[in-house]
């Protein structure tokens, strides 16, 4: 399997993150803002998986032994076993759940905004200032 450097993966997620950020900053429609947030979260999730793939697994159970053991490997060194760590993907899993939760509450707010504030414009909700 040709190896994909972590660096390019991270750059990709950074770019996606940037695009998401532009969406949040530029758009005035609350729906688009929520969409952009989803993009940003997805980018972060991707970054985690990319990072996870770079680290071979010394079986997590060993790593997570009872007491916090001293660091087994020096920073950035290879490890002998070949299975990539699952931690990154577990984190992706959690990011996913967070994104879902956040969207559900977000859309509930969007519905209330539509009914109470009349429009989906983010600036309509800037009554509190000073």
């Amino acid at each position, binding site marked *: 399997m040709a190896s994909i450097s972590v660096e390019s993966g991270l750059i990709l997620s950074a770019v996606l993150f940037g695009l998401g950020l532009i969406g949040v900053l530029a758009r005035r429609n609350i729906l688009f803002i929520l969409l952009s947030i989803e993009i940003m979260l997805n980018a972060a999730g991707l970054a985690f998986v990319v990072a996870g793939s*770079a680290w071979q697994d010394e079986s997590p159970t060993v790593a997570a032994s009872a007491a916090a053991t001293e660091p087994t490997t020096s920073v950035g060194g290879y490890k002998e076993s070949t299975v990539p760590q699952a931690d990154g993907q577990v984190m992706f899993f959690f990011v996913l759940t967070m994104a879902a939760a956040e969207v559900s509450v977000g859309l509930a707010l969007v519905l209330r905004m*539509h009914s109470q504030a009349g429009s989906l414009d983010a600036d309509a909700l800037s009554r509190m200032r000073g």
Partner: protein
Amino acid sequence: METVFYISAAIAVLSTLMVVTRRNAVHALLYLIVSLLAVAVILFVLGGPMVAVLEVIVYAGAIMVLFVFVIIVLNIGHEAVRQERQWLRPGNWIGPALLTGVLAAELVYILAGRAAGVASGEQVSPAALGASLFGPYVLGVEMASLLLLAALVGAYHLGRRTTTRQEQGSDGIDKR
């Protein structure tokens, strides 16, 4: 494998760009789904079959469907597009674009040439993922469930449309 990664990366970036610039919400949604699928491919390439599938099912599937559902409920079809026109004047792109450009440049500058290590390309089987999830991360899963519960209760409370008499009464006052 290398080429697949780069192709799908390009697709993801392009479609995300389109998502952000579209006026019509539905078009944006569709572009987003394309972008998510591209990311799923990348995830698969990076050795996360389970994660890729999850991305497709949960992210592209569930969350996007939610958005579609909301768009339908609020039927913000074409007149929203007219509204978007005066909301999306090119003027207000400059600020965010500039800011994010600088931020992305900083990150890329950091990442270029420093992130050691190469993706091993080995697959993390769903079994391994499951074992890890319900092994050391079992507490994490519990917490994730709490997170979803919180979202559930929150969404339920906020979304309830049955406004009782008090609320109508109080609605007037609060339209400050």
